[in-house]
């Protein structure tokens, strides 16, 4: 009887010590992403860049459901790098008020991450995916409206449509309305994000909140109004990496550094459009982009 229990205990101890080891990824890098198109594209880009330049196996763990999940995953070492936005990192994860320009926000996020979490940021990828107030192209041209301040004068004649989160977040609609003195004819309608662009096109609403890099902006001839009072914080896309990964694989940091500043707002919109509207494979879109930029080998098939 005693021997039986001793065996059981030994088994349990073995099992525990096995499980006690934190997950480590010898010789491979795990890239995560959130669950929307732009995030996959960036995740895929990071993955392909590392594969090409760092000679490491890359595992992709995309579709993680949001900043919190990604943060937990990277803290626990389940993923090694994922694309985040500086503004989101500042407000949602560091829980600090969003103010300051691009450079200041980037530096603040970087130093806090390094101090508190053992994470660091690669250089910003080049575009600012901030909130964009969109109006129809025809209205923009006819009324000669380019900025939000100009739009604010016309707001009483317009109907607005926003997503639920934008309406509720204090740094969303409430703050925006205060900053620009926006007053619409009626309460803005709350709609599903996917339907906003359509509704705008179909004249059901005259102004919608979207993202600056929405693929549908060029496709549907929409115009993003300029945030001339700089109400929205910068949302620069950056790769967040574990310091441990950088230490073990410095070639990863170098590979990511090469991506710095390579994607403009326009280029990001184009890639989003190709994946969302044209339903092209993310991997192909990303590979073509990297080839075009000379970051990976191979000729761009579309150049004559």
């Amino acid at each position, binding site marked *: 009887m005693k021997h039986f229990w001793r065996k059981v205990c030994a088994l349990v101890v073995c099992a525990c010590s096995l*499980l006690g080891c934190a997950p480590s990824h010898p010789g491979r890098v795990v890239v995560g992403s959130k*669950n929307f198109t732009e995030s996959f594209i960036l995740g895929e880009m990071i993955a392909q860049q590392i594969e090409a330049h760092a000679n490491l196996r890359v595992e992709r763990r995309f579709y993680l459901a949001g900043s919190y999940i990604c943060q*937990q995953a990277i803290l*626990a070492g389940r993923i090694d790098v994922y694309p985040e936005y500086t503004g989101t990192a500042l407000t949602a994860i560091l829980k600090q008020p969003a103010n300051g320009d691009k450079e200041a926000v980037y530096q603040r996020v970087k130093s806090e991450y390094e101090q508190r979490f053992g994470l660091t940021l690669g250089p910003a990828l080049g575009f600012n995916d901030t909130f964009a107030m969109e109006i129809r192209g025809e209205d923009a041209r006819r009324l000669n409206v380019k900025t939000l301040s100009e739009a604010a004068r016309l707001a009483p004649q317009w109907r607005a449509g926003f997503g639920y989160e934008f309406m509720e977040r204090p740094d969303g609609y409430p703050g925006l309305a205060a900053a620009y003195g926006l007053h619409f004819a009626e309460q803005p309608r709350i709609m599903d994000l996917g339907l906003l662009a359509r509704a705008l096109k179909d004249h059901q609403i005259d102004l919608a909140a979207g993202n600056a890099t929405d693929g549908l902006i060029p496709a549907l001839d929409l115009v993003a109004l300029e945030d001339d009072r700089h109400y929205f914080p910068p949302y620069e896309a950056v790769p967040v990496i574990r310091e441990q990964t950088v230490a073990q694989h410095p070639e990863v940091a170098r590979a990511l550094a090469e991506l710095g500043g390579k994607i403009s707002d326009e280029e990001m919109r184009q890639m989003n459009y190709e994946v969302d509207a044209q339903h092209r494979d993310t991997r192909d879109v990303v590979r073509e982009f990297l080839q075009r930029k000379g970051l990976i080998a191979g000729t761009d098939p579309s150049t004559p």
Partner: protein
Amino acid sequence: MNVIRFMVENQAQVLELTLEHLWLVGVSTFLATLIGVPLGILIAHRRQLNRPVLAGANIIQTIPSLALFGFLLPVPWLGARSDRLAILALTLYALLPIIRNTYEGIRGVDAAVLEAGRGMGMTEVQLLFQVELPLAMSVILSGIRVAAVISVGLATIAAAIGAGGLGEFIFRGLAMVDDRVILAGAIPAAILALLADFSVGWLERRLRLR
């Protein structure tokens, strides 16, 4: 089959997530046993505490798991890391079956045996370790078995708050609308539950009096 091929191609990830899942379930079941068995022994001997303790454990069980995860998120040290949080929540959920079965197991020991033991001059501690616990062990293990199986299921929900484990496959698969990924999480989870049930059940049977 597609799922099998997917799991083989991604075996490193499947293995990693399975181990994570086992860690969540293992640690929480272990902690729940550490807390629950002594509590069960206590209330079996002090009947007055019986109702409040069982009622407390019952209330915890009725809170929907996702809600419990949500409540605990703002807590300072715990909420910072969701696997800590998940382990705490899973431990809380495992308490009721363990406490209750320990209580029932000990109360089920034949009163004549206890009287004889006491009359012969055994101390309460000797009675507890040499008579009550060995005789109640099968029932206690049954409670631990139920707790472990429940934990395997609940741990899949823990992925919703970022604690990892096989639930991550399920949630990602749902977002991707990809069955293979969903099943790559669901199938191992089901197998784990069956394994837990079977292995603890085997221990139970060995210890049950013929």
